[in-house]
């Protein structure tokens, strides 16, 4: 048991390392300006993978159906943006409110230069996660007592409330009202001038570390307790698991990583604006989780990349009117991509309810192949 676990750990680490090197190589060998879609899909896929895994921790592993993910991402994105906009850019960004109420920037505070950038960005991301987790703790106090669908609708409502609060005029000097926050460090800031391009690598590294931590949590004694709550709440409580405490823990941790994911999302799109973090975004992430398999981390990751690549890149052609010779291909026109997309999703939901991975993980699948042969041998005896 212990041994296979260790083996799995090594395989996972090795795969992750190989992926990171591959991505870095790709970005430096291929010309990013000619493969825009590829690199956007990769980066967005990494960010969405993290957010989807964080949602899966809550919905798939703890059995709490929450729809507040976009709200927590918003908190993370704003915290990150507010803390990292360079001081001399603040007047330009907050021009409507005659400058910002906060006049420092973490990367500069930490010495500026590459070191300051790395430390400042990391610290801002972590703080973004902490803000999201703190808010989650607060709203979790009343909301987590609710049962399945009531919890869903209450967290959905929370997302709407957060969005309204951040667009409020009176908070303008901090949040820039309904306008976007921009000019803060993004993934591209990590490209070394005239040297290595690291933007995609950084996105993968940051998302990867977070996902790894979630994986460690899921496989720890707390992760097992979460699964027990998901499977049977009454039995879990009878076996000494404090429901309120563990649900709150899962909710806060999930929100923490959603917050970090929100910060990464801001880095990805070069801006933070409240109106992007809508319920539709939560639904998008939920659908990734469902497609990947509720209760499978690797499923969420695979589904995130597939979903993003399909919607941003592979299915783009569906949105442009195409002529083959003199013949106009029917149906193709703006918006068709999303229709095809939602039909695919409905098919998955209705006919492949377990998603790509069910509740298994990639290593399980590999081990399962060898396990099957072993069981066959045993049966043969």
């Amino acid at each position, binding site marked *: *048991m*212990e041994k296979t676990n260790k083996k799995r750990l090594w395989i996972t680490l090795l795969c992750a390392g190989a992926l990171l090197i591959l991505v870095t190589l790709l970005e430096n060998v291929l010309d990013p300006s000619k493969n825009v879609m590829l690199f956007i899909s990769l980066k967005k896929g990494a960010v969405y993978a993290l957010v989807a895994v964080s949602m899966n921790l809550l919905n798939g592993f703890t059995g709490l159906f929450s729809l507040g993910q976009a709200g927590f991402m918003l908190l993370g994105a704003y915290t990150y943006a507010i803390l990292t906009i360079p001081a001399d850019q603040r007047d330009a960004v907050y021009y409507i409110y005659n400058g910002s109420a906060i006049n420092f920037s973490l990367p500069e505070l930490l010495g500026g230069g590459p070191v300051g950038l790395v430390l400042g960005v990391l610290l801002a991301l972590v703080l973004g996660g902490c803000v999201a987790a703190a808010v989650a703790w607060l709203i979790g106090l009343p909301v987590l007592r609710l049962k399945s669908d009531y919890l869903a609708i209450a967290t959905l409502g929370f997302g709407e409330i957060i969005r309204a609060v951040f667009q409020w005029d009176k908070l303008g000097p901090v949040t820039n009202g309904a306008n976007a926050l921009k000019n803060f460090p993004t993934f591209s800031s990590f490209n070394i001038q005239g040297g290595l391009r690291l933007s995609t690598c950084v996105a993968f590294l940051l998302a990867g570390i977070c996902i790894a*931590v979630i994986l*460690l*949590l899921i496989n*720890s*004694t*707390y992760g*097992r*307790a979460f*699964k*027990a709550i*998901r*499977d*049977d709440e*009454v*039995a*879990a*409580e*009878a*076996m*000494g*698991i*404090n*429901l*309120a405490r563990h649900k709150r*823990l899962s909710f806060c*941790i999930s929100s923490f990583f959603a917050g970090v994911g929100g910060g990464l999302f801001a880095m990805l799109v070069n801006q933070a604006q409240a109106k992007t973090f809508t319920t539709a975004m939560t639904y998008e992430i939920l659908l990734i989780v469902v497609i990947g398999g509720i*209760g499978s981390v690797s499923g969420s990751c695979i589904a995130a990349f597939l979903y993003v690549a399909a919607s941003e890149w592979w299915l783009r052609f569906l949105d442009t009117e195409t002529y083959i010779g003199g013949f106009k291909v029917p149906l193709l026109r703006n918006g068709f991509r999303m229709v095809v997309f939602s039909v695919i999703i409905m098919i998955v939901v209705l006919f492949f309810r377990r998603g790509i991975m069910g*509740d298994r993980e990639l290593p399980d699948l590999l081990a399962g192949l060898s396990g099957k042969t072993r069981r066959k041998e045993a049966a043969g005896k």
Partner: protein
Amino acid sequence: MSETVLKVENITMQFGGVVAVDNLNLEVNRGEIVALIGPNGAGKTTAFNVITGVYQPTNGAVWFQGEKIVENHPQGKMKALYKGEHAGEYTAVLAPTPDRVTRLGMARTFQNIRLWKSQTVFDNVLIAKHCRSTSNVFSASFRLNRKEETRQRENVEELLETVGLADVKNELATSLPYGKQRRLEIARALAAEPKLLLLDEPAAGMNPQETEELTAFIGEIRDRFQLTVFLIEHHMNLVMNISQRIYVLDFGRLIAHGTPAEIQNNKRVIDAYLGVSEDA
């Protein structure tokens, strides 16, 4: 030897106007196996739920190892509705959640088996150890509790060996035959390291041979883990063979109490079980 482990004191449980348990008093001493029997709907499981913190009683108190763990008195709407006795005697409100009761040293099984369906036999037992682990979420995630984790895993292996489930430890809990699922539920309760084990109809749905095995098994684990056992049961064979003392509940009220031999000859018990016409 006669130290009281569990003491149920004047417990009344009333749902709206319906009195499910009426002024129940009982005691279980250390090392004993005590049974609570009674016809269907007599209020046995309700009594269990009150003791384990699932329900808050309407009135009365529960003591565990000399400490008062549950107490309540009729409040609010119940004040007017209350039909039981000893209404004025209790003033405090003590309502621990079931997990707290379990951590105090009382673990239970369920009448309709409630295993964690997607987990293996091994994990089902290991999860029950969670309430005894001292690590916080941080140290557990980053494996700073490796020693404890290893020790717990060893304990679980041992426990599975003891209850005879070691050979199926990697199977899904729900793939086990019924009798083994019962056994697994008991093993899971044992993993929580209880002083008092509460079994809710452990032999329900078992054939005579399985029941016999179970009878022996309960005695075995009592000695091995120095437990006190309090059980609800329908199978008279099991109850009569195994228990030192028996409490009989009918329509929520205690109607008899004594050794198996005394209970077997008690007229009220026989009436309750066989039924008696009102004017007899």
